[in-house]
């Protein structure tokens, strides 16, 4: 009836835009990463230098440290969000007054720009302006200063992430819980199973797919956290919250050492792909095989 030519024609603009702004940048950066290139140095020309940039990346202590804090941040944030989100989802399964309004309020942080979330938490935690340092000082005599204490800054970024993204976990798990058939639960109660047994042997296996998918999405998102941390701590104090994206933004990008910056970009992309693949193979694929 009509040829596939028209189909390709309709698809062409999309493919072109994604090629020029999604694919070509990486081919180009891969090329640059094998060169010594600093336009503002004594020798501004591009000089091929084999894998010298990559050798430097592997021994770059700052870069390795940023990978470490990123891993810690992602771990604590995602675990907390999962536990909290599950508890909140369960608390949502009963009928109670005002349910719809509470759900709406709970969804609110999801639509907010990460940079605004960073700005909000900066206003919450800056000493003498924020309410948190004031309350913590009055109640516990604790001096919260995220500009000086590395651990306080780290924990605050994790709490900020929890505040921003737990609702996503809650809402996806609510969707999973709602769709569960009631029969197994009734049967288990008749058989005299207690709450803990029901959770471990019935609820958890049944919502496992939803949990895995949510963890996957949250991990991928947490790995790319930049804006809000940049706003809140700027990666400091020292390099306590210099997560990998923040590192690229603060260190690699402003320096005009393009060859080295390119090598770091390539390595981070590669690590993200590997993390993504490992997660997929480890979490998602076995479940598909069983099903």
């Amino acid at each position: 009836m009509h040829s596939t030519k028209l189909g390709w024609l309709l698809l062409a603009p999309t493919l072109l835009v994604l090629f020029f702004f999604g694919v070509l940048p990486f081919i180009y950066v891969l090329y640059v990463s094998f060169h010594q290139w600093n336009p503002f140095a004594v020798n501004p020309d591009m000089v091929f230098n084999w894998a010298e940039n990559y050798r430097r990346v592997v021994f770059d202590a700052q870069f390795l440290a940023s990978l470490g804090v990123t891993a810690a941040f992602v771990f604590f944030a995602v675990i907390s969000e999962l536990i909290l989100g599950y508890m909140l989802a369960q608390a949502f399964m009963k009928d109670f007054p005002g349910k719809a309004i509470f759900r709406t309020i709970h969804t609110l942080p999801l639509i907010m720009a990460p940079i605004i979330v960073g700005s909000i938490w900066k206003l919450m935690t800056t000493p003498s302006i924020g309410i948190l340092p004031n309350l913590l000082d009055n109640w516990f005599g604790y001096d919260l200063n995220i500009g000086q204490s590395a651990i306080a800054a780290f924990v605050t970024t994790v709490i900020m992430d929890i505040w921003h993204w737990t609702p996503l976990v809650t809402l996806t798990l609510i969707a999973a819980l709602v769709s569960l058939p009631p029969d197994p639960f009734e049967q288990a109660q008749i058989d005299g199973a207690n709450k803990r047994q029901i959770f471990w042997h019935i609820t958890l296996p049944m919502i496992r797919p939803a949990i895995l998918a949510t963890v996957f999405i949250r991990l991928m998102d947490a790995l790319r956290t930049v804006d809000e941390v940049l706003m809140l701590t700027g990666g400091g104090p020292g390099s306590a919250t210099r997560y990998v994206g923040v590192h690229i933004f603060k260190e690699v990008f402003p320096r005009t050492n393009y060859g080295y910056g390119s090598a770091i970009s390539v390595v981070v992309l590669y690590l993200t792909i590997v993390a993504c693949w490992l997660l997929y193979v480890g979490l998602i694929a076995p479940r598909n095989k069983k099903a």
Partner: protein
Amino acid sequence: MRKNRPWLYSLFWIVVSFLTLFPIYWLFVISVKPAVDLFSTPDILIKSFYWQNYIDVLNDRTLRGYMVNSLVISTGNAVLCTVLGFFACYALSRFDMGGKESIFFWTITNRMAPPAVFLLPLFLLMTQVYRIGDFSLLDTRIGMILVYCTFNLPFAIWTLRPTVDGIPKELDEAAYVDGASPWKVITEVVLPLARPGLAVTLILTWVFAWNEYLLAATLTNFNARTLTTGLSEYVTTTGTEWGIMAAISVFTLIPALIVFGLVQKHIVAGLTFGAVKG
């Protein structure tokens, strides 16, 4: 066991809602405080409304320019992504093209890459390669509109695909039998039916573009700077104008809140890329 004390759950959710809303409320508190009152003991309640911060923001020519840039870039990008995404979905849905499912998944992977990794490559390409004479895409609105396609176009394709797939093919075929041209079929048969899906896509891509910071901060200098970058300019090591910063944040937040009212039900599905039904 299941029926007792529903109000206890309400009470629990009141606490959760308070924790959710308080930081946003605090932003507003700071935005209506004069600078001199900021460093006294923080009051939880608002005693008087001081609107000067908002007036200062609106009177600032630079910030007004940023607002216009933000509006133009997010609107341009949302329209472009929705239109291209719609065409792409129509192609993927109605034509037997070899490898079209691979193409579909390839478009999605474009969104998976961390944006920080794009910074240097895009900067280098836009300054070194994508240029005609003196005109480079760096620091232009059209440049930003195109750059934002890297994350919004895959999103548009992903969200529109079920909509277009759901429109019966028989309708197209009937129109073709009546002698309509492909263009007429797309614009007059399929488009009206896809309208709800298109609206949601348009709104969500708009807000993603409006919220973007990282790419705007590195790929613009002055001409195409957006409101989110304006916000970060107010945080300096020497001294931050907290009231102004809060007021800009509120201005940046308002459109997102309106959008929230419009498409609240679709936000979760949008953020999880449809992997989990929300």
